[in-house]
């Protein structure tokens, strides 16, 4: 019951953040909503691990959160200076 409520609310918040990614007036809104979407995806994978009891999914959640952080930092640096690394 609780896990069903969690899945539905995470899906609704993903749809709202996707609306902000598609609609966002500036690139800052899109990068912010993209960062939120990666976090939402990692939390969804953890909730799937809770639902099924399949603990190797937690490794996937860790990799997703690391990749989300790195891609957000790379996007912010690229949009600030026009390059990611010198």
């Amino acid at each position, binding site marked *: 019951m*609780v*896990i069903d*409520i*969690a899945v539905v*609310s*995470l899906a*609704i*918040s*993903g749809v*709202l*953040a996707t*609306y*902000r990614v598609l609609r966002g007036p*500036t690139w*800052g*809104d899109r*990068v*912010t*909503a993209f*960062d*939120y979407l990666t*976090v*939402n995806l*990692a*939390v969804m994978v*953890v*909730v799937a*691990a*809770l*639902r*099924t*009891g399949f*603990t190797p999914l*937690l*490794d996937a*959640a*860790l990799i997703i*959160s*690391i990749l989300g*952080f790195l891609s*957000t*930092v790379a996007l*912010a*640096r690229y*949009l*600030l200076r026009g390059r990611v690394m010198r």
Partner: protein
Amino acid sequence: MTGRSVLRAARFGAGALGWLAAGTAQAAATEPLRAPSALDGHPLAQVLVLLGCVFLLAAAVGLVRFPDVYTRLHAATKLVTLGGVGIFAGAAIAFHPVDGTPRVLLIAAFFFLTAPLSGYMIARSAYLRGLPWHQEAGSVDDWQALGSEAESSLEER
């Protein structure tokens, strides 16, 4: 229609109703079709997961409803940190007998370190690139003098 056929139909209907009632009673006596989840039997973990989902949903609503980049960052970093750590703490409690707890705590620690950092990076690049912000009538920009310095020092870094 004769009286006998009506009687037969009534008997058949009564038999069908009895069969249906017996079937539903048997279905209610057995377990419902639902797989067990790791959250069953951990009320503290259920409360933590529900709180985390409420905070994540509030962050998404703020992401849609707030007027500019900086207020949307305010919604999408603080609330997301709280909600994600709540869900990860609930998962750590629910996974406690099996081997899931150290990994969930590792994810929570990494997340707690990196979520404010990515929010800071987005806010810094947005401010230095001069994205417009929402100004109400009569508001004062305290950072206006610092903004020109930041823009002039952008070429050095």
